[in-house]
């Protein structure tokens, strides 16, 4: 999503978000992420207005104090930025890719099933399986921090069964243009 993104050409405008809509976003985040209301309050105080940064291709980035916090594609789920995810690693469910896949991940490729199902990879166990269309934190074999954020294209059980093709579609990753953008 952010492989090629330059603030000068891809941003359409900054607008403060109405409080009524902010309330909706807050509720949406609380239901989608595993985050306590208190923690959310700490990263996004109620008093601080959210600013919507509209970008091309229906991407909206929300910022607080000019720092990107979360983004959204169309009306899809809210994704935290990678910086935020590093600070609060537990807010998204985790999948892990093996070492061979890191190189491709850092080049912006979608994650294929075999990289997730192999020995170095990790998928949630069957009793905590994720349906398709869940935002996930992508970790890497032998590393502590998340390397990207993506959305599952197949259910995790399905990934195990099919073991072929795209399993997780990448939204943002370490070193893409959103990562380089510390402030907006």
């Amino acid at each position, binding site marked *: 999503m952010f492989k090629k993104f330059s603030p000068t050409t891809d941003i359409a405008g900054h607008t403060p978000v109405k409080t009524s809509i902010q309330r909706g976003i807050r509720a949406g985040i609380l239901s989608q992420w595993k985050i*306590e209301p208190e923690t959310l309050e700490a990263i996004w105080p109620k008093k601080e207005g959210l600013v919507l940064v509209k970008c091309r291709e229906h991407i909206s980035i929300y910022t607080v104090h000019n720092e990107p916090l979360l983004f959204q594609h169309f009306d899809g789920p809210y994704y935290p930025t990678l910086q935020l995810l590093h600070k609060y690693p537990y807010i998204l469910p985790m999948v892990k890719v093996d070492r061979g896949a890191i190189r491709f991940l850092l080049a912006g490729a979608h994650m294929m099933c075999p990289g997730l199902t192999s020995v170095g990879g990790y998928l949630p166990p069957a009793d905590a399986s994720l349906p398709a269309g869940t935002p996930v934190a992508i970790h890497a074999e032998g590393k502590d921090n998340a390397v990207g954020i993506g959305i599952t294209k197949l259910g995790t059980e399905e990934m195990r069964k099919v073991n072929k093709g795209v399993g997780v579609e990448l939204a943002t990753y370490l*070193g893409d243009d959103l990562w380089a953008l510390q402030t907006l």
Partner: protein
Amino acid sequence: MPSKKNATPANPAPAVEDPDAPPPPDPVPPVQVLYCAVCTFPPEYCEFGASLTRCKEWLKEEHPDLYDKYYSEDALTAKLGTLSVEAQSKLEKDTAKKEAKAEAKADAALKKKMASQVTIKRIERNKRKHVTSIHGLEAFGIDLKKAAKQFSSKFATGSSVTKNPQGLEEIVVQGDVSDEIVEMIEAGVGVLKGIPADNVEVVEEKKKKGAE
């Protein structure tokens, strides 16, 4: 009215949360993640970046304990765990190649920067009236908006960032201030830093006859 509405959805959540959780639920403190000063990645990912050698140097200097953790012999052999040797060697080769490429790119960018010109143009608007347009500041990493603001406060005239017919951005200052701007650039006032004086060029543009 809005405050009342605001209170309704916020209140029930902690009320439900409170009985089973400890009474004053503190916000969870963020995890402090160390980022490499060279490539901005967490240091464990430096090996995939384009500047591994410099990252390694930085880490050795700033955080020797972490350097041992990531780049000692044990760590390297442990990393090989699941990956075949030839895949690893290929990876290393790729990294080296990438590094060389990135360095060459940085070199080229620097060269380009040194060669790029700043053009200060005096444009006649009326017989006695001029505007001054400054083009090419962005090549030196100057924020055009800030520079425009600086000009307008310095000369007490209007100054704005506009797109010229070629679609490139330039600063247009009202009034003939080209000489003063040259002086400012040479002195490096405010945001106008790092421009070699040789790269500054002053041009005069007369209005064409008969043009509106």
